[in-house]
């Protein structure tokens, strides 16, 4: 009995440990571009991959995509190094998982003679023109500072100058969410909103709800909350609804996963700021193609914009197409 249990356990553990690896594809094509996102599956990068695939079909390029299982440089590095070792890659499109630690890895790619560009995230300070790192061809991505600025200027538009707002963020030290917070604060300063405070929830919806509920008790006159990612906004929105303030307090969420849209439809959040990852993927491939064909006038920074989603426009196909894809 116990032996059988042990065997069963061992088998179960082994079965769970074997993670299927994506098979590399062979195909006789003129150009092969490697695409290494930050982490997958993840709605943001799934959507980006859709843009990459579309551009590849349109241009007749072969894409070799390898996904890190975690947003972590130690996971991403061996993948990139293995792709370089193949020896048949003409270009690398990647979202580096750390702006410092990935510098030497991507230098290795450059030294192997493979040109590269970064999408969504960057290495160094992101300024490939005059910054500390200049060898990547270009950085294609949305400006998170601008995203935070847009989020909180829509709050200012709705609430008017003088209104009090509160920020729910993930954890200090993440470049994207830090920049969103800074952008929101800058908008608040420019447009006369008062930021009551910022709290960090460690990406935990329970904590986000607890903190927001407490802040709403202490400051009953708060009129808006900015959630720097989906869980932050979900917890904040749940606290707002529990306090009977649904409709009276605006909750803005960042990133348009399907779950965020669900929260928008049911009223937990009132606005969703969507990045355009498919644009990043598509632009990445055509820029790489242009470079490979000898085009030289590439900008070192290609900003992609945002879409602002509300209950009243979310069924508009021009807006809905920016909802991130799950698969």
């Amino acid at each position, binding site marked *: 009995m116990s032996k059988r249990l042990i065997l069963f356990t061992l088998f179960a553990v082994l079965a769970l440990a074997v993670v299927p690896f994506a098979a590399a594809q062979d195909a006789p094509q003129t150009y092969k571009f490697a695409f290494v996102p930050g982490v997958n599956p993840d709605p943001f990068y799934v959507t980006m991959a859709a843009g990459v695939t579309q551009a590849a079909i349109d241009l007749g390029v072969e894409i070799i995509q390898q996904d890190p299982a975690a947003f972590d440089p130690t996971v991403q590095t061996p993948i990139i190094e293995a792709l370089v070792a193949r020896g048949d890659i003409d270009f690398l499109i990647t979202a580096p998982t750390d702006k410092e630690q990935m510098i030497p890895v991507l230098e290795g790619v450059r030294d192997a003679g493979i040109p590269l560009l970064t999408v969504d995230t960057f290495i160094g300070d992101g300024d490939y023109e005059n910054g500390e790192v200049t060898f990547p061809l270009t950085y294609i991505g949305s400006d998170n500072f601008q995203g935070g600025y847009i989020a909180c200027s829509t709050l200012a538009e709705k609430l008017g100058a003088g209104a009090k707002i509160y920020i729910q963020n993930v954890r*200090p030290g993440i470049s994207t969410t830090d920049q969103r917070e800074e952008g929101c604060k800058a908008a608040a300063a420019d447009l006369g909103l008062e930021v009551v405070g910022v709290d960090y929830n460690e990406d935990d919806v329970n*904590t986000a709800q607890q903190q927001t*509920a407490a802040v709403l008790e202490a400051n009953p006159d708060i009129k808006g909350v900015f959630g720097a990612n989906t869980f932050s906004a979900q917890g904040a929105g749940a606290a707002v609804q529990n306090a*009977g303030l649904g409709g009276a307090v605006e909750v803005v969420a960042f990133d348009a996963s399907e779950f965020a849209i*669900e929260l928008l439809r*049911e009223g937990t959040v009132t606005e969703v700021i969507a990045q355009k990852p498919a644009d990043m993927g598509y632009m990445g491939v055509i820029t790489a193609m242009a470079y490979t064909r000898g085009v030289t006038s590439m900008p070192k920074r290609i900003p992609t914009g945002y879409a602002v989603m509300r209950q009243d426009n979310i069924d508009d196909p021009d807006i809905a197409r920016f909802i991130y894809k*799950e698969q």
Partner: protein
Amino acid sequence: MTTTTIPIRRSAETRDQIINILARTWSLVFLLGMIIFFSATGPGFLTVRNISNILVSSTLVMLMSIGQTYVIITAGIDLSLGWTVGLASVVGATTMRNLANGGMEPVSAIGIGVIAGLAVSLIPGLVNGVLVAKIKVPPFIATLGMFGVIRGAAFLLTDGQNVVGNLPSVVRDSLRVVGNGSLLFYVPDAGFTWFSQPPDLSAEQLRTLQKLAPYPVLIVAAVVIIFAFILGRTQFGRHTYAIGGSKDAALRAGINVDRHLLLIYVLAAFTAGIAGVMHIFRFTAGSPLAGEQALLDSVAAVVIGGTNLFGGEGRLSGSVIGALIIAVLQTGLVILAVDALWQFVVVGIIIIIAVLVNQFQAYLERQKAHE
């Protein structure tokens, strides 16, 4: 001779008594002190709504700390509980969604989802139990391994997504009746109502709505009472302490230590399963990450509550107070608008103080034994 020793013994006894009472109640005294402090300094802290918020938000850590108390009393630890919460919430929410989309009535779909979530939580408990009790893997290592296995399993079930959403809105509405509901509501100018809030409240009245008996709190209170009874009043509880005190002595006393330990890990995982199901009710979605952050808080709650990390002693009431201390602290610091980074520092210091008090108590007891 006797006349001289009596006063000495008396004073020693009084001292011991005072220390004993202090050691047993310091966490309660500390909790009350914190409540008084935050009430005096934090605007909006001492309101029915805020107290109700604190109680509801403490339920997650409290549930996990119940199971953790049992495990720690046996001189073990369960690091995998947080992911068990996530696994249960993912399985429960997926079951509910699929059944409801298949045309099942929402209440039945929710019922089966709850059973599925609770049932799946038993599996990691069983594996932990087998590893620790039968194969003698140290609990820290066994449950650390399962930490990874359960995490992977939960994410495999969601295809790597953070959330299991998309529950039909009828299901979500039914979930909310429990997760955000209360047995008794009160609105200052509309009076008390049972089971649901008074109908047709204005926006102004909604803001004064008070939930006097939130269901999540009632459910957790029931779980606490049951588990406290088992630990304090049954043979199962006595055996738990015996195993933590000395495994060899427990064996000699004829206790089936292996089977008992296995059951303890299953029990602990089950409390995490309850927490996972509760997450679905409160947030109308499942998430592999549901209990990730609460794990360390649950261990902290147990330690603050006076349970000895080396086993043999501890009380469930202490862990409940520990969980409340953490929730009051986290809410109070936010209300006082303490810088977020300092909040980590303060919570950490409180945990260290708790351990120091426990060590001091153990030291005094050793001294007493030498006398």
